[in-house]
């Protein structure tokens, strides 16, 4: 799950259950606030943290995210409605991700759902969706419990994630299945995790046990804590847009400024041909055509700036929405919001990048980008043969 944008101008962020653990480990002591919670940006070195997630195992405090337990006979109907995840088709221990859309087919949030048992689902959203869920549960026999405040969550990221979990004695049921078990006396839900292109697992357990589990992982699992700045690199490399930064969400966002799944580069998360979900009809019947889309570009420079103009020749065509320095590419990588028509042809784009002036930019292949492209190609061929009738 991708974190939403940092809170602007927020004073006194709340501690997550893992705050003390993170703070004691943080050498850089650089913090920000996400959903009102304190979140470490850097522990010691962005590069080292990034490398750990790429090559070994890194752990992150996923406490700022919102989590809900959903039970009841209509739990699957409820979840399918609220997010573009056909929850009814998930078998026990399966997980899926999707989007939460408004009635007009605009993206409200990112969602991940795991089915822990026949009648128990775990849902994670990047921001609190209490109101949305209250509304969506009406008329359905489903009970939604906000467990965000009572649990702690640790993400274990990287190729060595499961090895580290095993070493810490926190062996979960398998690399691809979600489960709810008692690990070392602690009631824990474990679910597979995909943070951009990096795979791993997420442990969710009672807040009181936060420090115990964190310590155990650090000591036995030989993992490196990772902060938001390093995760930002992983995120942009994989083409996962960040709510509130790369696209706007929330009740105060004007309808016209909200984005469709296509516009944020995630059309494959809201397919029209599996289960129904809120907003699907708007997508099918005349949702506003996206005027802009998000693309990931690599910029031939060391630094870049959110808000910087993207130019094609002498013309401003878009702007950078977020960026990070990629240790593997040795250059800046960035999300850019550009006109839908321009996204395909990135010839001669430049970006205003620091004091050096214009730097050349090129389109970057990402994991999400590949999924979206495959999905759109497939959809195009299928809609040609079937005309949609209203």
């Amino acid at each position, binding site marked *: 799950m991708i974190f939403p944008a940092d809170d602007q101008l927020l004073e006194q962020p709340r501690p997550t259950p893992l705050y003390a653990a993170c703070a004691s480990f943080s050498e850089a002591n650089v913090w920000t606030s996400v959903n009102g919670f304190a979140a470490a940006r850097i522990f010691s070195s962005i590069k080292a943290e990034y490398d750990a997630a790429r090559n070994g195992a890194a752990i992150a405090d996923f406490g700022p995210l919102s989590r809900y337990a959903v039970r009841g006979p*209509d739990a699957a*109907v409820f979840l399918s409605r609220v997010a573009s995840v056909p929850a009814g088709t998930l078998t026990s221990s399966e997980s899926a991700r999707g989007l939460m859309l408004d009635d007009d087919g605009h993206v409200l949030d990112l969602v991940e759902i795991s089915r822990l048992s026949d009648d128990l689902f775990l849902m994670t959203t990047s921001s609190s969706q209490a109101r949305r869920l209250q*509304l*969506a549960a009406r*008329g359905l026999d489903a009970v939604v419990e906000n467990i965000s405040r009572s649990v702690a969550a640790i993400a274990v990221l990287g190729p060595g994630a499961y090895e580290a979990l095993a070493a810490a004695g926190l062996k979960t049921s398998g690399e691809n299945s979600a489960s709810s078990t008692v690990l070392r006396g602690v009631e824990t839900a474990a679910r597979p995790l995909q943070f951009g292109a990096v795979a791993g697992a997420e442990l969710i357990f009672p807040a009181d046990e936060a420090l115990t589990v964190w310590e155990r992982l650090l000591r036995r699992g030989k993992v490196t804590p990772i902060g938001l700045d390093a995760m930002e690199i992983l995120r942009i490399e994989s083409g996962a847009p960040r709510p509130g930064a790369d696209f706007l969400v929330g009740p105060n966002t004007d309808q016209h400024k909200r984005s469709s799944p296509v516009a944020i580069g995630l059309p494959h998360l809201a397919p029209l041909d599996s289960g129904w979900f*809120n907003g699907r*009809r708007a997508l099918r*019947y005349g949702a506003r055509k996206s005027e802009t889309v998000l693309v990931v570009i690599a910029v031939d420079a060391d630094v870049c700036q959110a808000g910087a103009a993207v130019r094609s020749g002498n013309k401003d065509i878009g702007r950078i929405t977020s960026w990070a320095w990629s240790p593997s590419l040795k250059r800046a990588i960035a999300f850019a919001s550009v006109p839908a028509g321009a996204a395909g042809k990135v010839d001669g784009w430049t970006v205003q990048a620091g004091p050096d002036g214009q730097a050349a930019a090129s389109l970057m292949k990402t994991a999400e980008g590949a999924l979206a492209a495959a999905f759109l190609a497939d959809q195009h061929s299928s809609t040609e043969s079937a005309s949609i*009738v209203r």
Partner: protein
Amino acid sequence: MTAEGAAVAGAPSRIEGGVDAIVVGASADGLVAAAYLARAGLKTVLFENAADIGLPVRRRAYGGDKHGVDAEHLVFTLDPQVIDDLELYRHGVSFAARRLDTVYFFDDHEALHVSGDVRNAANDIDDDDEAAAFTTFLEDVFEASSFLRPLFSGAAGRDFKKAFNTASPALARRLNWMMTASVDDVMASYLSEGRLRTAMTAETVFRTSSAPHEAMSFAGLLAKWSGEVAGLQAACGVPEGGVTVVIDALRRAAQAANVDIRASSAVRQILIEKDRAAGVSMEGGGQVRAPIVVAAGDARQVFLSLVGPGALDVAFQQDVAAMTPKTATAQLHLALRGSPRDEETRANMARRLVFAPPLEALRASFSNARQGEVSDGLIIEAIFPQVFDQEAVNSKMQILSVMAHPLPFDENPEKDRQEEIRTAILSGLEKFAPSISKRIEADQLVLASDAPAVGDGRASAFAARPGVVRQLALASLCASGGRIGGLYFCGPESQIGAGLNGAAGRNAARAALQKFTRAGGAP
């Protein structure tokens, strides 16, 4: 397919196809929609819970244990295009009275006679100053309501917006004001305190949920007076034989157009497949499939029950759920012994009688009704339907049909509550028809919560109409059908103002036909 379908009728898991359009509910609008669809050549099936539609209901009404018609007793805003297109005159509609005079009664036992030709009603006012003020009021209101007619009949589009923006500044300002101001504000600007103001206030807020002192309440009169009966704007008419005759004529028109009307057929669910309406499933089992479904029930029933929350967008569901009424109108039918002797009363029996309570009492009634309390200051509209009914004129009893407003809306009214309402209505009646209670042979109370007993103006239509601006918003929302393709709505929420109208059914059919044609006929 239909023949085969008929052959296996009764088999519980039958799936019937070959149908182009399904209409759920034989309300006036449901019948209108079905008739339009069938006339356009679509194979149309209409389902209705009740056993009878139209005239049989009326025949039953004057015999047995019933003493009136569970329906509207007057017509204010019958859509002229529906009458014309569906040839309702040929199918049995004629008017026994087309500009019924109204007599307003007041707390001080005085009465005010206002001509049924409302446009010229100021001629009836004796006081010159008051007559002049009333004339200005009528001119301004008529101008505004004529202008706004396309908006109220659901026909307003970009042209209308253009017309609005090019209207004279004075008119535009007045329209703006009248759409958003309270009844009290507008009345105070034209009429001095007195009976006329009391009468016009009662006329405006009757059957609405906005009290006269509340913002946006005046528009109720604009909507009401934008309608016409037999070519006369703001008139009030009685069809020969009662309002049920109109329903019956609609039924005939539908049948003449080959609508397959199936009474006693309850729909359980509207089937949604791939974001489109695909047909309906029946209470008794089985499905009927069609690419067009027109729903004529009330919005909550159609969307929250027949479609169901599992297939509704969340914000839309919230909007529909917010349509829960707080106040309502009740109807009381009285069978009276004996007949009045004095000339004035006999003359009044052929008029519309309205009791207009003092404004303070009326304001309190709205406030009480919302608290779930019944009060005395009710607006009462009464007519003697038999007077206009050749067939019933010789009945040994007189039937009086009374509508009273505002009352609380109860989902499940208890016996006590019914008695309370009955008492309040009778005490209101007594204020202008003293000792009428002593002549009651039998009576029957119909509340908004009563199951839609007949195919005609369903009882749920007795729920008070919200302020006009809100009605317009809700009507547009409902018309979207929750974005479900092929689902069209013509329930009470799609109509602006109370009473029998038909425009909503016509609009729903028109929308369905446009899409159907665009899609190149049957998919």
